[in-house]
């Protein structure tokens, strides 16, 4: 039994923790929160410079070939540091979609530039309220031209291109669509977490290049989201851990009634529960990492369990972190709300808990079919 990351990856984790604590400090995250820039372009270039954008991309396409467990380790640190960059959109979604469904030519055209950070991609799936399986696919491709509206699109304002799910032949298909050309109107949406961009994309007869077999869009999206669920779970675990550390520090330093508030059982038990939820989520995420890295058939179950557990842990940790901070936690200047916002943002990205819980049970019913 070796249910842990390798020593090399633990070193990578330390390196990433140190790097991001300097380059994605709360101060720099706040610049994105309060400023006009939709992401931290300098951090993006620095992360690209470390080779981390291609962590799971084969060397043939310019990647670092660290494997998916390497990408999981990085994801945890991105979440811990609240990195205000389109890491999830461009790597877990766009790069992964091309790796999974792209032709050799598409891989050669797109992946090296995604790895270098020169181009940013995203997934355009949602069309208003709804979860992934319930998308009312109004977006249409006819004669190679895409028309329709996608909302919200994570990092839609930043991305150079999008992997778009649209109805092509009566069934959903995936397309690669350049967002810089004519016919694309992008508008920024006010984001629950302003450190992560949300946009509305309107397409009018925009050239769309098929990605993967026609009519396979729903299956491709499902498989893509399973993989992303594991990676996002690591971001959530990293975020939950950061909240626990913040709350613990505050509870030790803050005095009330003549003693540190962390000596009160009301606070102790609250933080013990946060610890338990975070550890359960971490263990579920580890299993997801194993399934992702080894290509196991259990991936859909492992991914859904990792996601449900991580949504729960990050939400609990971020809200109880505010509660532990008391009134101070409710101020704009305390960093608590950065995590509270990110927790909910990640809980909505790729579908919310009720959807993933239902998927989990569906998969278990399938596995244990009578």
């Amino acid at each position, binding site marked *: 039994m070796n*249910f842990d990351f390798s020593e090399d990856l633990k070193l990578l984790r330390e390196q990433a923790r140190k790097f991001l604590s300097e380059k994605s400090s709360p101060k720099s995250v706040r610049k994105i929160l309060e400023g006009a820039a939709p992401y931290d372009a300098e951090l993006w270039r620095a992360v690209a410079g470390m080779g981390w954008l291609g962590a799971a991309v084969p060397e043939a396409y310019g990647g670092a070939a660290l494997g998916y467990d390497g990408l999981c380790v990085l994801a945890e640190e991105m979440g811990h540091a609240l990195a205000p960059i389109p890491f999830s959109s461009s790597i877990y979604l766009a790069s992964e979609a091309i790796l999974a469904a792209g032709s050799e030519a598409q891989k050669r055209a797109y992946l090296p530039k995604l790895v270098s950070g020169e181009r940013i991609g995203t997934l355009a799936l949602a069309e208003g309220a709804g979860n992934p399986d319930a998308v009312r696919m109004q977006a249409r491709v006819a004669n190679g031209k895409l028309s329709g509206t996608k909302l919200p699109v994570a990092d839609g304002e930043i991305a150079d291109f999008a992997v778009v799910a649209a109805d092509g032949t009566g069934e959903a298909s995936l397309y690669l669509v350049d967002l810089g050309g004519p016919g694309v109107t992008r508008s920024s949406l006010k984001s629950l977490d302003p450190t992560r961009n949300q946009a509305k994309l309107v397409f009018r007869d925009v050239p769309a290049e098929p990605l993967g077999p026609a009519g396979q869009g729903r299956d491709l999206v499902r498989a893509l989201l399973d993989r992303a669920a594991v990676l996002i779970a690591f971001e959530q675990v990293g975020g939950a851990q950061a909240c*626990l550390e913040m709350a613990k520090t505050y509870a030790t330093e803050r005095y009330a009634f003549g003693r540190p508030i962390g000596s009160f059982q009301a606070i102790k038990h609250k933080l013990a529960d946060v610890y338990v939820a975070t550890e359960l989520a971490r263990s579920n995420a580890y299993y997801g990492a194993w399934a992702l890295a080894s290509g196991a058939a259990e991936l859909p179950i492992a991914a859904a369990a990792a996601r449900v557990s991580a949504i729960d842990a990050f939400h609990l940790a971020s809200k109880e972190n505010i509660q532990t901070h008391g009134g101070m936690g409710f101020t704009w200047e305390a960093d608590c709300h950065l995590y509270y916002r990110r927790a909910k943002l990640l809980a909505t990205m790729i579908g919310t808990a009720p959807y993933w819980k239902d998927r989990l049970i569906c998969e278990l019913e399938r596995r244990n079919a009578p």
Partner: protein
Amino acid sequence: MDFEDTPEEAAFRAEVRAFLEKNAERKSEAKSFHRGRYIPEHNIPETVRDAKQWQAKKADAGFAGITWPKQWGGRGGTPVQQVIYNQEEQNYVVPRGVFEIGLGMCIPVLMVYGTPEHLQRYVRPAVRGEEIWCQLFSEPSAGSDLAGLRTRAVRDGDDWVVNGQKIWTSGAHFSDYGILVTRTDPDVPKHAGLTFFFVDMKSPGIEVRRIKQISGGSNFNEVFFTDMRVPDSQRLGKIGDGWKVSITTLMTERLAVGDAPGPDFDDIFALARTLELDDGPAVRNPAVREKLADWYVKTQGLKYTKFRTMTALSRGETPGPEASITKLVSASKLQDIASYGIDLLGMAGAVMDPEVAPMQAWFQEALLYAPGLRIAGGSDEILRNIIAERVLGLPADIRVDKDVPFSQLKTGKR
């Protein structure tokens, strides 16, 4: 990252499987509810006899006291081998509930504080199941606050004379020996005045009375001491060091106490899939699905947390107080699953007739014993304190009883 055994671990696992396959009945799907009920209360002599036979068989094959030295009847093996054995044994119907406390807590503390003569005399019979041990710790006025105990031991020549009462002693009614913590000096602060012994449960002056639980069963006892004499040679640790010895015992207890026994995710999932309601199987209901998903992720989270612990063990690291998670999560989860399993049955949920209620009324039975699991072996509240203080490093509670002689502490009416 992998779940593979090393070649040595795989060879050991194969050996374990061969032993179990030959000597025990594999659990069948239909009999899953055999798993982990509390020790049967009817026919105790028979249960104890079966458990003793099984323990001797294990010892002969080298699967008892796996991590203990060979000279005392152990295997001289590794903690990972112990975990592997436990994993495999779970799949078989074997007698349980008789030796866990002795082998999980009493003998380990004896091995730390006992003399070579003690070890020579007591370890092998315990490993072989010839002698059963119990733990005489809690008292009516000392549960979570164990150091508040009042059972007095007074020195008299080479002996100590013990008077007082213990409670919640599992298995005292069929035990041969017990580990006992007593107050030997009431005039110093409470943690400083304790002394630890082991006693012969057949000593004159001991009376064991069964406690009837919520569930109607009697797994625990009250134990009364009236002028019971214990030789000083049966003292473990120094006079006044009883608290230190108790803590050693409790730390091993938290490792030994594992998953709450009873219906788990697989069982409520099976129930929800087979139970036909007016609008189809219960599992079709979205509210039921959400609940099931929550329990699944908790169950799996615990499973993989244990895998992480096992990884640490196989690297030679010592798992810390984080092992407290298992009992904290699984006892509450069991209570919730039991309750919801009954809810699924609707109006019929109130019936606990084993002929009528699904799975021989396992959910109903578990509902009634689950409260005990959230209290025994470290209550939920104590476990949260342990996590907060020893894992997270939060400051200790301010104690009003810390520097006050025990005899001057305030006491309540309960």
